[in-house]
Each structure stands twice: as C-alpha cells, then as structure tokens.
C-alpha cells in the first residue's frame, strides 16, 4: 500500500539476529528484508532487477542475500507469477557443433531476460524428440525452441496450443509459431558459384536427406547448376547431416562412373565424412577433389581441417529464437514471424581450381 499522509510508512525495523529456529532453516525473503532494512517487496523488486530501486537499497538487499546464502524459491515465484522462467530447447543432434553454438545464443538471450534453459536432444530420432517435447511440456516450461526438429507439422501445431514454440531451421509453418533460419537456397547457391568460379563443372552434392534445410540446399544447388549451364552435371548422392552420412555419400560419388572434382556437403559434419572418404580413396583435397561444407562450425575452422564452408550466424540465430519466444509470451496472438538470415561463404583450404 502506498503510504498516505494519514498512514505514513513506519521506519523499517531491523531484525539483526535470526532466532535459534531461523538459524536451522533456509533463509527466506523475510530474513533478507530484515537484514537489509527494507520491506519484503523491495527484496522482491531487487531480485526481479527492477531498475526503480535505489542503488543503496539494492546494494543492501544483495549483500544481505549473499551473506545469508538466500536462494529465491523458484517454485513459489512461478506459482505467484504463473511462469516458471524456464524455457526448453530440443536440439536434433548434440554431437553437431552447429547446435552448440545456437545454444550459446539462446542461453545468452535467456539469461538477459531472467530465464533458465533446459536442454535436451532428439538424437536424430523423431520418437525420441516426441518424448523430449512431452517432458518439457510436463515441466511447464514457458516456451520451447526446437532446433533442427524432425517432428511433424501436426506435432508442432499441437504443442504450440499449449506453449509458445519457436523453430530454428525448419520448414514447418504453423499459426503462432515463429521460425528463424538461414536462406539455405542462397547458401547452397553460393557454394556452387564459388566452385564454378574456380573452374569446376563436375560438382556433386552429398544430400542431407529429410533433415531440415536439406530440401532448400538441394534446390539451391540445382538452381545454381542450371544457372551456370551445368544442369547436365547435377549429381546428388544420398547422405545425411552426420559424418557417416557424408562419408557414405562421398564414397558413392568417388566410386561412380564420373568422379566429381568438387563436392558440396550437406553440412560441416558430412564434409568431414567426405574428407575421410576422399583420403581413403587415395585422393587429395583440394588437388583432386574440392570440398565445401555448410554451417561454418568451430569444426570447420580447425587448422588441420580448414574447411571452405557456408557460414550461418548461429549465435544470432539462437538469440533471435529466444527473442521470438519472449515476444510470443508478451503477445500470444501475434501473427507468425519468419526470419530468414543471409548466409555467406568462408573460403579456406579445401577448395582450389580442378587439376586439368
């Protein structure tokens, strides 16, 4: 209650020493308030990072909370505010550094907004991802980010009726579901353009299969090949977004009737697999075969890999996904937003002109 002339707020009474009973229980917000010489609501406002609290009082609360070893009761807070301040993230593959770097962006934006992040993996398996999604729904997370999801559109739609959902690198469109992705058509086009500029014509692709983004990369590859008059050289080998998938795809291409002089891999992991297959075939990169990856993960930048690759702004993607969730929490009925980021090519040492 705001104090009035008739009811001025009394001076804050300090409680310098907790009782013997209090010494044996975890400190509460009331203990912090007593030691800091402020009201309970001021403690609450400081813990919510309310900028209106004066610096001296904020300092007093923080010092008292630290000295007492006070930990805010997250469960109580969530009951009062009807939010858990947790967001769930399901990544399709924890082994892929692409997702680790997206998680960095999500975690940074979440932390700034006072949210904790619960991370789980779909393990490249739709059934496992469904279980992970159900778990996060049961935990009452305030929102869920699906990164590289293999879930069906129907499953995403159903989940979005319970909780805000943001999709990273997904072609799924659903009402009230925001998406953040890189323009993969453009990304694959850039890879082909680079190889054509080096003089390659027999440019093949190791495909990402049914994984999100694969169809767009396939389209970008095909479009570029046609655009540069190389439609007759289009060759797409089955693969996926794993090292093994890249190895299998490249192996098939290298042992085919017309060996390509350049390979566009589905992603950086698949490119590593392709590099292995090329080495096993007794060939050298880039002298015999050039290789382009996709994602520009930390793996691609390793000195002894030095992979030419298509850059996706992963940290930014993660930040944008978290921002989309926060926006959706504020305005649940807002129209879906689909952000498409522009990729770029990073040229390293796995591409060179073909040997004539």
């Amino acid at each position, binding site marked *: 209650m705001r104090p*009035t002339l008739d009811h*001025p707020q009394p*001076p804050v009474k300090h409680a*310098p020493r907790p009782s013997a009973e209090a010494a044996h229980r975890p400190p509460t917000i009331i203990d912090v308030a007593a030691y*800091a010489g*402020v009201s309970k609501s001021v403690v609450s406002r400081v813990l919510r990072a309310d900028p209106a609290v004066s*610096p*001296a009082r904020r300092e007093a609360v923080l010092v008292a909370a*630290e000295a007492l070893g006070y930990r805010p009761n997250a469960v109580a807070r969530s009951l009062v505010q009807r939010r858990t301040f947790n967001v769930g993230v399901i990544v399709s593959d924890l082994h892929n550094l692409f997702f680790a770097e997206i998680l960095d962006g999500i975690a940074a934006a979440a932390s700034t907004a006072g949210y904790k992040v619960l991370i789980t993996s779909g393990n490249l398996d739709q059934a496992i991802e469904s279980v992970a999604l159900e778990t996060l729904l049961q935990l009452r997370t305030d929102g869920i980010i699906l990164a590289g999801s293999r879930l069906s559109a129907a499953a995403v739609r159903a989940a979005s009726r319970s909780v805000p959902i943001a999709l990273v690198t997904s072609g799924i469109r659903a009402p009230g579901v925001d998406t953040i992705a890189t323009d993969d058509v453009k990304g694959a086009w850039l890879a082909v353009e680079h190889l054509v500029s080096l003089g390659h014509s027999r440019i093949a692709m190791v495909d990402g299969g049914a994984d999100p983004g694969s169809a767009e990369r396939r389209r970008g590859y095909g479009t570029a090949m046609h655009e540069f008059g190389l439609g007759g050289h289009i060759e797409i080998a089955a693969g996926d977004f794993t090292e093994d998938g890249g190895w299998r795809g490249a192996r098939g291409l290298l042992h085919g009737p017309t060996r390509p002089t350049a390979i566009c891999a589905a992603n950086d992991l698949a490119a590593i697999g392709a590099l292995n297959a090329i080495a096993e075939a007794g060939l050298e990169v880039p002298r015999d075969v050039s290789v382009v990856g996709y994602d520009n993960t930390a793996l691609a930048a390793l000195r002894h890999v030095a992979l030419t690759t298509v850059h996706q702004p992963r940290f930014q993607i993660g930040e944008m996904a978290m921002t989309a969730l926060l926006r959706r929490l504020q305005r649940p009925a807002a129209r879906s937003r689909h952000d498409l980021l522009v990729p770029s090519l990073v040229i390293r040492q796995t591409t060179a002109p073909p040997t004539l």
Partner: protein
Amino acid sequence: MQAAVDVSALEALRQLQRPGRPDGVARIVTSFLDESQVRLDALRQAVATGDATALERAAHAMRGISGTVGANEMHDLAMRLEQIGRTGHTAGAAGLVTDLESALASARPIFDRLRDGL
C-alpha cells in the same frame, strides 16, 4: 527515543559475511553516502523551484535509503519532507532540508568509520 544513527543492523550484517569475501557493508555505506548527496541536491532543487512532486519523490527516496542504513534522524526528516511534498506545496520544506543536511553531516563520521571497518 531512538538514536539519531543506529548501525547495529549493518554491524550484524557484517558479522554474517563470509571471511574472505568483499566487504558488502562498506559497499552499502558508500552507496548510501553517494546517493544521499544526490538526493539532497534534488531536494534543494525542488525547494528552489517550488516543485512539490520532485520534493516528494526525492524525499521518498531519501527516506528509503536512510531507513535501510539506520540513519533514523534523516529518515524522520525525509518523511516529513515527503509529507509536505504530498500536499502539493513546498512551504516549510527549506528548513527541513537544511536540517537534513546537518543530520547527514553529523552521521557521516559514524558511517565513515563503519565503512572503513573501524
């Protein structure tokens, strides 16, 4: 009657602090002394311009921080200033602001000692 300044709560808080950690009480006192000066300036300005809303706001903040550190005399003066501001006028505030300045000057050595751990 309560003492003009009662730092027993801050001393109790200091005893709670874990050894080897930065002195939080010194941080509180430093922050209080810095902020008091800012609030006093705002009070003087409010009186000079006859701005009752600004007077109420600055007095409210001063009352809060004074109560926090046990500067009881300052707390009471600030509360009276806040009440004046709430009437929509500033009449009678000038003298109280002067009293508040004096109260801060009297309290300062006590807080300086507390801050320095003496």
